[in-house]
């Protein structure tokens, strides 16, 4: 079973959840990232996601490993979509199961924050008046040394 996937097809939420069902778990949380119509008041028509697929899978695995080290008994599954997505389509599903519920929320939140830091996936927004790769012009994340700090990568 592949717990960490990049998918060209629509993500079936239930299939991601099924991977983390365990008899020891009392809680499963999922995060479902969907394509929102409005960002800062600007209307998105559709998105295109692109991944450096082999590395993205490795980095998703790394995030799962980090979670298991921090939250005992956690199981993790993550699928990220690539290709064209319309409004309300699902870009990512993160499922985390843990014995107790507080951990399931925290570990899941950790996963999405890490995805936005280290997983080589990019989105291109398409509006009525243009298109743009997100992350390229705002450059809110800058790495002066050319790569994320150790604390970013391994925290």
């Amino acid at each position, binding site marked *: 079973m592949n717990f960490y996937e990049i998918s060209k097809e629509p993500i079936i939420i239930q299939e991601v959840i099924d991977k983390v069902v365990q008899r020891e778990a009392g809680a499963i949380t999922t995060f479902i*990232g969907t394509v929102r119509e409005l960002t800062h008041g600007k209307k998105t028509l559709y998105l295109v*996601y*692109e*991944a*450096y697929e*082999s*590395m*993205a899978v*490795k980095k998703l695995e790394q995030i799962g490993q980090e979670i298991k080290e921090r939250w005992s008994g956690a199981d993790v599954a993550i699928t*990220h979509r690539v290709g064209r997505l319309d409004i309300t389509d699902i*870009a*990512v599903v993160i499922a985390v199961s843990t014995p107790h519920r507080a951990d399931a929320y925290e570990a899941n939140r950790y996963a*999405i924050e890490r*995805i*936005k*830091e*280290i*997983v*080589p*996936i*990019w*989105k*291109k927004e398409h509006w009525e008046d243009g298109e743009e*790769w*997100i*992350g*390229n012009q705002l*450059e*809110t*994340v*800058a*790495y002066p*040394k*050319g*790569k*994320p700090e150790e604390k970013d*990568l391994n925290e």
Partner: protein
Amino acid sequence: MNNILFFAHLRDAVGRDSVQLDASGKTVAELKQLISDKYEAVNLEHVMTAINEEFASNEEVIHDGDAVAFIPPVSGG
């Protein structure tokens, strides 16, 4: 030889998703300079680098056969 990979707006700027060139013995910083000289539209200032699918610093030395990818700030999720 080395396979150099470009993604997202870098690929658009270069006009292709990969190029073959010999970067062995060069540091990541030196390869970035070489690419920037060759493709004027490419700005690698805020771009991370991966060697064989692991993040690498500007000081790391590239070996023959390494796959080098330039990773713009990511925007998945």
